[in-house]
């Protein structure tokens, strides 16, 4: 009973159910491969989802719409700097993280200095990042360095390396949220910004660091995704806008802020990938797949809101 009251149990149960339904079609074959793929692809959604979760926790109106553009820009610049040369993986990582940091600073500057609503600020900024990425990419597809590609597609203890990165990040975020002063400040700000300010929480510092973190996470995800898929593409981040918001909501975090849920984000990331692969293995066409994905997200948002109503 105590377990059922944990918000993250829902996303994990949904993921498990989808897994069983998909495996049921192939009568058990390919279960290992499916789990492996879900962990690999889920990791990218989880990394950006964790960042988006922090932003959404800040309270109503806080959301980062520049995640796809930041991912693309970070990946493009990092791969360009590495130029497929061996031994440059660390340099690329540094560049990707620096791009994320820069994007986060720019986003927050717009929000703070121009008093823009975060939605418009990140939207306008993302248009500029997108242009920067188009300009610096010029349609080239630079391969990641050999050892980086091997790392991104490789495994350790039969779990994908990218999943290890995502898991490590989740643990760090969980500890910071649950055990550090900053995490308490973030939750307090999200629950009632005015009360938090009166209680002496440095609101603007919390907001700044949150918007920086989400962009750095997006930079990291872009870097890993490009290394995983053999190069940066201009539309590589596109699906991660809905994904990042959906995994936060499905994962049991409150969309109104002030309440976050780290394990739920991972469960929801696995679920989102498994739903799409389930629809694939049932032979759904591209149109039907999109309709079902959208419907499932909305259905879960509705279910989450009615569940809240009962408690």
């Amino acid at each position, binding site marked *: 009973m105590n377990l059922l009251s944990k918000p993250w149990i829902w996303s994990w149960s949904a993921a498990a159910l989808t897994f069983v339904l998909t495996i049921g079609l192939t009568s058990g074959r390919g279960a290992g491969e499916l789990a492996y793929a879900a962990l690999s692809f889920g990791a990218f959604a989880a990394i950006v989802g964790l960042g988006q979760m922090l932003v959404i926790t800040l309270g109503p*109106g806080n*959301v980062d719409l520049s995640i796809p553009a930041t991912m693309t820009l970070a990946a493009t610049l990092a791969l360009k700097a590495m130029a497929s040369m061996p031994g440059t993986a660390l340099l690329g990582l540094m560049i990707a993280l620096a791009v994320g940091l820069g994007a986060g600073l720019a986003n927050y500057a*717009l929000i703070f200095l*121009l*008093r*823009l*609503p975060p*939605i*418009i600020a990140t*939207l*306008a*900024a*993302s*248009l*500029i990042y*997108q*242009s*920067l990425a*188009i*300009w610096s990419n010029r349609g080239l597809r630079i391969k990641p360095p050999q050892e980086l590609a091997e790392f991104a597609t490789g495994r350790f203890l039969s779990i994908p390396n990218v999943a290890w990165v995502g898991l490590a990040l989740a643990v760090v975020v969980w500890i910071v949220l649950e055990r550090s002063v900053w995490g308490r400040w973030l939750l307090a700000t999200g629950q009632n910004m005015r009360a938090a300010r009166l209680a002496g929480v440095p609101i603007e510092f919390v907001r700044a660091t949150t918007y920086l973190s989400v962009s750095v996470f997006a930079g990291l995800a872009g870097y890993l995704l490009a290394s995983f898929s053999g190069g940066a593409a201009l539309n590589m981040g596109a699906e991660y*806008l*809905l994904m990042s*918001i*959906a995994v936060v*909501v499905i994962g049991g975090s409150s*969309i*109104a802020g002030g309440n976050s849920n780290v394990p739920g984000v991972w469960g929801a990331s696995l679920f989102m990938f498994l739903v799409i692969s389930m629809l694939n293995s049932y032979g759904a*066409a*591209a*149109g*039907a*797949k*999109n*309709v*079902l*994905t*959208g*419907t499932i*997200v*909305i259905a879960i*948002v*509705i279910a989450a*809101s*009615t569940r809240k109503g009962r408690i």
Partner: protein
Amino acid sequence: MNALSRYRILLPVVSLAVLLAATFWMQPRAMSYFGLNLLFNLAVPIALATIAQMMIIMVNDIDLSLGAFVSLVACITATYLLDTPALGLAMLVTLILGYAALGAMIHALELPAIVVTLGMSFVWGGLALFILPSPGGASPDWLRTLMTVKPPFAPMAVVASILIAILTHFLIIRSGIGTVLRGVGGNTRSVARAGWSVLKLKACAYGLAGFFGVLAGMALVGLTTSADANIALRYTLLSIAGVILGGGEFVGGKVSPVGAVIGALTLTLAASFLSFLRLSPDWQIGAQGAILILVLTARLIFSRKGGET
């Protein structure tokens, strides 16, 4: 307050005038009937989409599915409305009712509009792919004729924009229902206390958004004469930017239909202006973001001054 409300419509007008003057200076030949027609060619669907977005922003929500919705309407217009007009019309009416139902659901269950509309963008996009898996279709003749009509004195796009602005101004600013709808954005609780059903009002606002979204999709097909499932995806961003450029606020029901149309015209013109500048197409998207930031900065400076006096 008086000064501020005057600034609100002043700034979009000034932005458009400056941009128009700069365009004429760069390319004097644009200062003609045909020049204007080319400059504002795609303004009508963008203006209609911006009005649709404004209906949603008016009740303090935001619609991230509008671009996909307009694409879906374009696909239906280029196929069903052409071949079987009755069925096509029925589908479009169903879509408008669907939008109204969505608004009612978002209000009744207190759902976050941003997530629901993001999910809906997949639904609309999927349906559009279903109807038109590859680009094609054709515009109904009457629609084509309507969109390419050549009125005297000013090109079709300009005349139509002025008409849209006037009609929506009366609908939203002057009429009783428009005032109550803006009241939902301003203070939902007091509107409810005054005996209005907020549920119905929200459904009405979303229904209006669906209606103008349908008009936008039809106008787009009338201009392009064919459709594809991704034809209007960028309208989501353009419409939000247009509302904000036109002096609309995100919360509080402070919107301006005239401003929104002017904002849409400014964005349309910006694209033409950038190509006159011989700016590489790489920067087209970024420049729209930069213009948006620039105008918002200007507005901040204006409103600060307005606050001081």
